[in-house]
């Protein structure tokens, strides 16, 4: 556990890191970025919390069981979206042309439109959830293990 200044700053900063991560995830189909990158940004916030507070402290609010379930559900959403197109072909982009995320942008350079991309934004969200939960579970588990704490099954 570090000094009070560090902890206070970390408390304030985590919000911005989370928002930035979510922005990167949500705009993955328009700007550089995507699920993996945004998830990694969020995990960097978790690592910051881990440094500022101790792993023991963090364990109270961030349980590994929850993280595991979050990760599994992210993976399930991803593979479920892939399965949803199996009426035609596995991984068929079935949302293009429908009201949800279905608009097709004009060919060539142009301003982005958030309601485009078919299932890509949804997959970005699923992957972001998965990466954030999974990598934070890894970091947390390593910190807990090296400090001799018990890790949940």
């Amino acid at each position, binding site marked *: 556990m570090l000094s009070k200044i560090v902890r206070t700053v970390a408390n304030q900063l985590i919000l911005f890191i989370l928002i930035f991560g979510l922005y990167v995830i949500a705009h993955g189909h328009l700007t550089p970025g995507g699920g993996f990158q945004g998830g990694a940004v969020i995990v960097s916030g978790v690592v910051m919390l881990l440094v500022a507070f101790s792993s023991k402290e963090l364990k109270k609010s961030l349980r590994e069981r929850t993280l595991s379930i979050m990760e599994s559900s992210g993976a399930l959403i991803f593979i479920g979206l892939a399965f949803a197109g199996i009426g035609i072909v596995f991984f068929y982009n079935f949302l293009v042309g429908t009201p949800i995320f279905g608009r097709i942008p004009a060919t060539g*350079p142009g*301003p982005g439109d958030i309601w485009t991309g078919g299932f890509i934004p949804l997959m970005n969200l699923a992957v972001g959830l998965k990466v954030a939960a999974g*990598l934070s579970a890894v970091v947390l588990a390593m910190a807990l*293990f090296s400090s001799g704490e018990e890790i949940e099954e």
Partner: protein
Amino acid sequence: MMEYIPLNFPFLAAALLVGISFYILIFKRNLIKLIMGIAILASGVNLFLVALGYRAGGNAPIYTDVPEGPMVLPVPQALTLTSIVINVAVLALMLTMVILIYRHTGSLDSEKSRKMKG
């Protein structure tokens, strides 16, 4: 358009990174250094992949407010992204195992921490 580069410097750099990592893999006995060597090998391969897709004077392949001009190839970038994530996963697992090896044997040296031979 950029000038033509006579030597393929990025490819050369990738090959040299691979060479450096091979040097580490052969000569460094410390397990953490070994893992660093694998990370450098991964960087070399990733640099090679991403350099394959560069087109002289190209823009990033994102249509949102892109200036006029050719675009660099998107597929190598996607491959690099995949490869980076794979390497993160592998490194996490390797580091975990090194932690456990250190717990069991009290040594990070690849010769002293080995139990099996022959």
